[in-house]
């Protein structure tokens, strides 16, 4: 589980600063601590392996695109992406393959936390720094893996809820929620965030709440049924863009004008940004990819021989509404 090197490093940090708590203390220790990797150099050649959870999800493809673009800007880096295809066994074997290949740094978006934890531990043990993107494995950043970079699902949905409470429905009304895959962490966090966000406005009632497993077709079916049962629904919050697209079809089918909020804010012709720009949806809240931040961190580890990096980086969301969507759609 532990990299002995890491423990030693931590001990160094402890000696320097008695108040070794979190990243600040680690920074304090950086003056004497060894670099995070054995081989680092400004002009080196490095392979970064990215174990992606599932390429089939549009958001994850968006992450891949961002990462490829960010890595291309660094001539020293070669990025290899493996698609875990939504299968913990496949993803584990891909991480193992990266370890065999002796990649210089591992990026991973684990499909699920506990199952990928041992594989991440093996990588750390092999001396490969691990940056977790968007999803975490079990344990602590800075110890069981090098760092975590990602958005905060709860906060993103909280903002969506607050936006609903103050901007879309200041006078209250009926609201429906389309939830992601019930057992998955982001689904739960986004559900709770949104619910907490609308709490500020007591006139808002969540009348329907159903899981559509992140899928547009399921969302369409579910939302059509919701509209049958609750014809007065004014706003539907979809926990991802794809379900928002499904909700739009259902609303059109029922001839209802419902305000739709998506999540993820994906670019491209089928993404949420365009849907907001064209007026089909009221808003979508980006789930940041963290790609740029991840490649920047890789640079400081592999090129600048950093001894420490911030262990927990939260990338903020961006609210995409009618006000800014048109300007963003081109990017």
């Amino acid at each position, binding site marked *: 589980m532990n990299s002995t090197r890491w423990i030693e490093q931590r001990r160094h940090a402890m000696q320097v600063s008695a108040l070794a708590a979190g990243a600040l203390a680690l920074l304090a220790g950086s003056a004497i601590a060894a670099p995070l990797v054995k081989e680092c150099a400004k002009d080196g050649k490095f392979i970064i392996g990215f174990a992606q959870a599932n*390429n089939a999800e549009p958001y994850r493809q968006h992450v891949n695109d961002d990462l490829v673009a960010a890595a291309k800007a660094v001539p020293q880096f070669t990025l*290899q*992406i*493996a*698609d875990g*295809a*939504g*299968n*913990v*066994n*496949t993803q*584990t*074997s*891909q991480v*193992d*393959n990266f*370890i*065999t*290949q*002796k990649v210089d740094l591992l990026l991973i978006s684990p499909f*699920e*936390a*506990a*199952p*990928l*934890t*041992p594989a991440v531990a093996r990588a750390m043990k092999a001396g490969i720094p691990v940056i977790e993107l968007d999803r975490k494995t079990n344990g602590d950043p800075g110890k069981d893996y090098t760092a975590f970079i990602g958005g905060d699902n709860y906060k993103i949905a909280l903002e969506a809820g607050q936006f609903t409470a103050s901007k879309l429905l200041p006078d209250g009304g009926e609201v429906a929620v389309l939830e992601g*895959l*019930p*057992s998955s962490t982001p689904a739960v966090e986004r559900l709770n965030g949104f619910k907490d966000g609308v709490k500020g406005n007591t006139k808002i009632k969540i009348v329907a709440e159903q899981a559509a497993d992140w899928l547009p077709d399921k969302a369409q079916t579910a939302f059509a049924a919701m509209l049958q049962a609750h014809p007065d629904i004014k706003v539907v919050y979809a926990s991802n863009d794809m379900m928002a697209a499904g909700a739009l079809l259902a609303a059109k089918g029922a001839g209802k004008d419902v305000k739709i909020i998506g999540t993820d804010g994906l670019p491209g012709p089928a993404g949420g940004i365009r849907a907001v720009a064209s007026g089909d949806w009221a808003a979508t809240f980006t789930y940041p990819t963290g790609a740029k931040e991840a490649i920047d961190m890789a640079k400081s580890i592999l090129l600048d021989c950093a001894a420490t990096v911030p262990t927990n980086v939260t990338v903020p969301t961006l609210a995409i509404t009618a006000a800014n969507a048109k300007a963003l759609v081109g990017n």
Partner: protein
Amino acid sequence: MSDSTPQLATPASVGKRPQRVDLLAVAVRFQSLIGLALVSVGGIVFSPVRHGQILFLAPDNIANIIRAISETGIIAVGMTFVIITAGIDLSVGALLSLSSVLTATMMVSVGWGLLPTLLTVTLVGAAFGAAQGLISTRFQLEPFIVTLAGLQVARGLALVVSGNQYINISYGDGPGLAPPIFAILGERLFNNTVPVATLVFVAFAVIGTIVLNTTRFGRYVFAVGGNERAARLSGVPVSLIKISVYAITGFASATAGIVHAGQFNFGSANDGTGYELTAIAAVVIGGTSLFGGAGSMIGTVAGAVMLGALANLLQLNNINAALQLLATGAIIVLAAVLQSLVRRHEGGSR
């Protein structure tokens, strides 16, 4: 009578086959071994070399390959029995998921020990399979339909048992903790080289090979698939054999589910999706006929390893996942075409 039931229940035309066909038949019989050899050679030739070592042949890498296929491999061993009887079992992936959920629930929520859990889960798996076999034979339904229904039932049960949650397994003594020994399924033995999951698969494959090739039961399985009527007339308990082979896939799926839970420290109702297709692919590539009556366990194992080696090689070379699917698809078609050619040359009516 039973002891002399031929292992390969070929159609009537034995003796008139021209030599050329025999060569083809031999090639098909060993197609997966040949395929595996080809992929291995390709692996050695195209493998990236780092620090002077051919990565594909690194002991770590070989262990990775076999670990990655251990779950589908275990299922494929069971599936070989079913397909030799001209049946099919689509419920295996869902049953794996149900078994992983049951394993996690029993140990974590119910607080059962290791042995009772393993026994119960494998028994439930075998019973689930047997029930499908029974329904299929008793009501003369296509196993395709019965096991398709079984897939839904198993997935549904898994969702119900898990309460729509992932059930994480933590280890230790006390309530809510699983026996630490169970975590061994995720470990690697012998100086951190051989994954335990791989050993389970190897044990399964060895036992499967022995049962299929050397026991009376194995011969009956071939007989039922080769010519059910003839088998029945010769006193083979056809229904019982059919029920048994589904019990075997059920047992195999449950074992794979246990391995899954142990390797990944959790039970999930969403896992194992598509495993039935990977397992069937391994069996078909292994030279077992979907029409029944002919097949080989070693072929299945080689087929499974070949698919794993191919996936590994493509990743080592950073070739994208889409090509992997294309390659797998092409190999399956090739395997099926070869079988069909053999059947036609043999003049079989099937």
